[in-house]
Every structure is written in structure tokens, then in C-alpha cells.
């Protein structure tokens, strides 16, 4: 599965995109898995209230099952317009 990071999450983690193998059921599980990798990930996901996520380019909540999605993205609240 492809994981994308944007804005300060991208900067904190240090990569914009990575392909990973995971057996996580939900996005929450995936976040936990990623957080345990390195301190950079832990720091990036330390306050989930400041993080939004999208599954296959749809904004969703963290308890959403990954299902057979191909792409998950993490980013701060959007500031478009």
C-alpha cells in the first residue's frame, strides 16, 4: 500500500511517499504501526487531533478499515482557497 505525507507531516517524517506492507485493519492500526518505527514517525503522529487522513483520496476518519484501498494519506488540516 502506498502511504503519502503532506506539509509538516511530510517534513517531520522525511519522505513524501513510501510503499509499505501492512496487515493493519484500520487507519488507526496503521498509524500505531508507523509510530513504532522511529522517533520521527512517533513525533509526527503524537497528536492525532492535528492530523487528517484520506483513503484512496477520500477524506475519512481514523477508524476506517483499510479494506483493499491502494493509497492512504496523512496531512494537517487543509488550508486551501
Amino acid at each position, binding site marked *: 500500500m502506498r502511504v503519502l505525507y503532506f506539509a509538516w507531516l511530510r517534513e517531520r517524517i522525511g519522505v513524501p511517499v513510501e510503499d509499505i506492507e501492512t496487515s493493519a485493519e484500520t487507519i488507526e492500526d496503521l498509524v500505531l504501526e508507523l509510530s513504532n518505527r522511529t522517533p520521527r514517525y512517533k513525533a509526527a503522529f503524537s497528536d492525532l487531533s492535528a492530523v487528517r487522513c484520506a483513503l484512496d483520496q477520500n477524506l475519512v476518519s481514523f477508524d476506517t478499515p483499510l479494506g483493499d484501498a491502494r493509497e492512504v494519506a496523512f*496531512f494537517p488540516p487543509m*488550508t486551501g482557497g
Partner: protein
Amino acid sequence: MGVIIQKSAFDVGDQINAFSQNHTKMGAIATFTGIVRDNDNETLKAMEIEHYPGMAEKAISEIVQTAMKRWSLGDALVIHRHGTLEPGEVIMMVATAAIHRKDAFEAAEFLMDYLKSRAPFWKKEITKEAVTWVPSKQNDEDALDRW
């Protein structure tokens, strides 16, 4: 219906003229243009706009389709730039065409409110003193309650 995400600058006047001329059956055209404005200390050097390619087009198209269903519109257009912009440069524009002004105005405001906190763009301010990600604003989130 048009959604354009691009790095390059565009001419707002030309876009509005072209949009209006396509809709002579519509008596009312509302537009909004967002411009990079300098801060109070006039220290802004640039604004970097990051976006999520693919999702940006998708999310904005869905917002525009929602507006087209909810108001009686002849057409709607959104153009949003990404990349590095200087103070005074146009970031984005919205245009709506309707028979009645109320539909044109409300749909344009709806589009702007949704773009502010539901379109996957992130702004970074580069001033002479610091580099800062622009925080999201609670009142932008609150603005969605209106719809």
C-alpha cells in the same frame, strides 16, 4: 463546469470574460479571487502552496458538483494554483453563473468555504524571519456549519 489545478499564473480578467461569454443565458456572474497578501510587517517573501495531486482535482470537483445540485447554476469554475507565489499574486479564483444573483453569490461563498478547509492544499509562509505552515482557522471550520 471546470476545475483547473495548475502551477502557472493565469489572467483573472480573461478567465472571467471567457466564463461570462459562455453563459449569456445567465444574468448573474459572481466571482471571488484570492491573492497572496503581505503580512502587517511587510516581511512576506513568498507563499508555498503544496497540494495532493489527484485528490485536489477530485475533492474540488465533488464540491463543485454539490454546488451545482444545491443551487440553480448554469456553470461554475474553480482555478487553484500550487507552487511558490509572491505577494500580490493570484492564488485561486471561483466563478459562478446563475439566472438569479442569490444563487450565484451563495454558491460562490459555499465553494470558497469548502475550498478553505476541504481542498487538500497547504500553505507555507516564508518571511524574512521564519518559515511557517499556515495553521487552519477555527472560523473556517465553523463557516461550514452555515451550509
